[in-house]
């Protein structure tokens, strides 16, 4: 495969697509598949055959189109008409009315000028809903692997790192470390063997950003990883993907096979000296394996338990070798940055948080689904314009970001810009992109209890604060929720939270108390309302015995 071959392939595919008068894009991501989009596909094909349109209209399964709450979704190209809640009857109507009599099916048509679509900006998800995830040719037709071609044939590794650094891209896994700096560190470490690892162990409750990218545009991740491999000097990549994502695994396997067949992965990529392979490693269902040192041990085939850092994986990672570890969404941003330049990317978002962020909108909100917004957009815009606000008759109370490591942002902070620094200033984190909206019917003690229950189950048990502390914090929350706790329990709860936060070994324990601390900060009255006066006095802040016992 040469650069010319790649262009030829792209042109062939574009010509093939132009032959069709219409293309019916049905959503083939996990959300829509689970509510029947495969039946919709079959009906579309059947109806097309009946109308003798099978040769001129193509039915294409694509990645997530965003409005998951209204699925299954079908888009008719080239018009761009989007249909929601498509069942077999509607599918037949789309063929018989939209395609044959040219009258759109009014009942199911979505107004695409709605803020849900207008306020979004798609970089990571640009191909989701636009291409067939299972065909490499379709990815190539939309400039796929062009960035890899350019990097390998025209750029020095140091230039690639510099380009990523200048873009201002920060790790999308949650911590927000500068991606360019990380690449630079791994590049500079002297070693014959280095690894590039993609963290696809997305485990936050309510989060499905990475899954959607993997299902809708797997080649984008492969391309991003290959570029990273070239930049840091690695020849082997691993994608650590959780077993709970069978569709993503299936599509990744297929994508790797296709890329290898075309020589886009393997030896002498684009006739250069650069060799790069990617293998999958399937997680076994532990949340803690999203922590980088635990993930590395899990890939090595050992028990997924974190170890103290330093040494960081960039110096001593997989099998003791320098390892570059980034999140799915981070790799998904690489190809566009190379294609369109770091200046273009750096101009999006805010000066310190550049680019866009994908969020999984869930909870008490009208438009649930997958959105991508420029950094720095206000939370209000996300919740009320894009999300359409809370359901009829209820009031917005808080938005939870960052999952079990994050916090709740109350209505008073609705105008906070969504970027790394601003979200931490209000006690939450950007996190990987889960956003759960809560309305006046939500009880904040229950919210804190839910996340603590999650953390206590997912603690690996290595360090004492996380293993035992989370159990006691959960127990205290349970007692408070049941109205059995006393006013002495609240200081104890806070002390335990601070202790677990400051003394735990890894990020899981260090951030596990965040949902409690943040709800205590903004909704302390909800806790206090449930407390009783104690029978005996126990001084807080010391471990001395009660004065009367």
């Amino acid at each position, binding site marked *: 495969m040469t650069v010319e071959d790649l262009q030829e392939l792209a042109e062939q595919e574009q010509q093939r697509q132009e032959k069709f008068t219409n293309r019916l894009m049905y959503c083939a991501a996990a959300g829509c598949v689970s509510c029947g989009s495969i039946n919709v596909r079959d009906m579309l094909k059947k109806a097309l055959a009946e109308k003798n349109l099978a040769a001129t209209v193509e039915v294409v399964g694509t990645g997530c189109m965003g409005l998951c709450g209204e699925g299954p979704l079908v888009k008719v190209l080239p018009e761009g008409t989007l249909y929601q809640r498509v069942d077999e009857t509607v599918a037949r109507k789309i063929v018989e009315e939209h395609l044959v009599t040219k009258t759109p099916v009014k009942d199911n048509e979505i107004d695409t000028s709605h803020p849900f679509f207008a306020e979004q900006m798609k970089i990571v998800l640009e191909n989701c809903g636009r291409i067939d995830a299972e065909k490499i040719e379709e990815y190539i037709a939309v400039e796929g692997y062009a960035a890899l071609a350019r990097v390998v044939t025209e750029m020095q590794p140091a230039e690639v790192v510099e380009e990523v650094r200048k873009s201002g891209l920060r790790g999308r896994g949650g911590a927000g470390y500068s991606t360019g700096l990380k690449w630079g560190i791994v590049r500079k470490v002297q070693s014959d063997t280095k690894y590039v690892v993609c963290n696809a162990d997305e485990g936050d409750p309510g989060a499905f950003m990475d899954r959607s990218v993997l299902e809708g545009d797997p080649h984008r991740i492969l391309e991003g990883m290959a570029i990273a491999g070239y930049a840091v000097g690695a020849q082997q990549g691993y994608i650590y993907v959780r077993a709970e994502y069978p569709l993503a695994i299936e599509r990744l396997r297929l994508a790797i096979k296709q890329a290898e067949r075309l020589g886009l992965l393997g030896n002498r990529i684009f006739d250069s000296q650069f060799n790069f392979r990617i293998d999958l490693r399937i997680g076994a269902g*532990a949340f*803690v394996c999203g922590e980088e040192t635990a993930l590395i041990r899990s890939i090595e085939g*050992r*028990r997924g*338990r974190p*170890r*103290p850092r*330093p040494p960081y994986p960039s110096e001593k990672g997989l099998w003791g070798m320098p390892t570059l570890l980034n999140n799915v969404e981070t790799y998904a941003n690489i190809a566009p940055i190379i294609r369109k330049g770091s200046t273009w990317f750096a101009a999006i978002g805010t000066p310190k948080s550049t680019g866009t962020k994908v969020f999984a909108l869930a909870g008490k909100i009208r438009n649930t689904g997958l959105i991508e917004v420029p950094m720095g957009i206000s939370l209000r815009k996300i919740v009320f314009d894009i999300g359409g606000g809370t359901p009829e008759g209820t009031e917005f109370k808080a938005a939870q970001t960052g999952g079990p490591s994050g916090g709740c942002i109350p209505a008073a902070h609705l105008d906070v810009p969504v970027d790394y620094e601003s979200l931490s200033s209000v006690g939450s984190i950007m996190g990987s992109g889960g956003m759960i909206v809560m309305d006046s019917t939500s009880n904040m003690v229950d919210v804190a209890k839910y996340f603590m229950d999650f953390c*206590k*189950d*997912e*603690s*690996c*048990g*290595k*360090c*004492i*604060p996380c*293993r*035992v*502390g*989370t*159990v*006691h914090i959960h*127990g205290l929350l349970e007692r408070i929720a049941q109205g059995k706790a006393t006013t002495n329990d609240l200081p*104890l709860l806070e*002390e*335990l939270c601070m*202790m677990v936060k*400051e*003394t*735990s*070994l890894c990020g899981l324990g260090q951030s596990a108390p965040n949902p409690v601390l943040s709800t205590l900060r903004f909704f302390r009255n909800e806790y206090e309302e449930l407390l009783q006066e104690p029978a005996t006095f*126990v001084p807080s802040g010391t*471990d*001395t*015995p*009660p004065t009367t016992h």
Partner: protein
Amino acid sequence: MAIVTLTIDGEQLSAQDNESLLEIARQHKIEIPTLCHLDGLSDVGACRLCLLEIEGSNKLAPACTTRPMEGMVVHTNTEKLKKYRRMIVALLASEGNHQCSVCMVNNHCELQNLAYDTGLLYVRVPYLYPNKVTDASHESFIIDRDRCVLCTRCVRVCHEVEGAHVWDIAGRGIDCTIVADLNVPWGSAESCTSCGKCVLVCPTGALVKKGESVAEMEKHTDFLKYIVTARRKGEWISIENEEE
């Protein structure tokens, strides 16, 4: 290897940069409580008792796995650290069934000593009263998992020093337990050489010798010193240090 100077608790020291802060502190008679650490075994940084405050860092760092850096200013015994250490011991006490009065290692127990040293007089969190499996199937030893603090010293000594790797951890979170081989009774664990090293390094009464009565068993960890010294001199086969 280089020599660095650093300050620990106001004292200016010089040290080699491949030593841990714990080693350096102990060489200078600065006491830092530890539990999972044992001289001669690899460090895992799991018990969090040896946490230190380092000026300029917003995170507490474990002394056993942190290396010194030039100009580092370290505090080992601040009020915050004392409080957190006491709470960690309290959490350990709440996690198991540590009835000292009916324990074979009463008065020779590292957990008990830690409770004294950290000034733990009262446990404010409720006791969890676990009901894990006590295994007396081995001809010479007993494992009482309700007295286990999951320091993994037994796992490491068996793997790194004896080379048998009988012990490992099963389960996660609060359900973690030490298991022999693939979770079989200790007596039928084929890899066990009955050397007893795990029993000697266990800080509590979780691993004990049969036939001793309450408060009679003393643990001796000195033997490790000789093995490790011999290994350094090349008189002993060496296995790559690899925790758990």
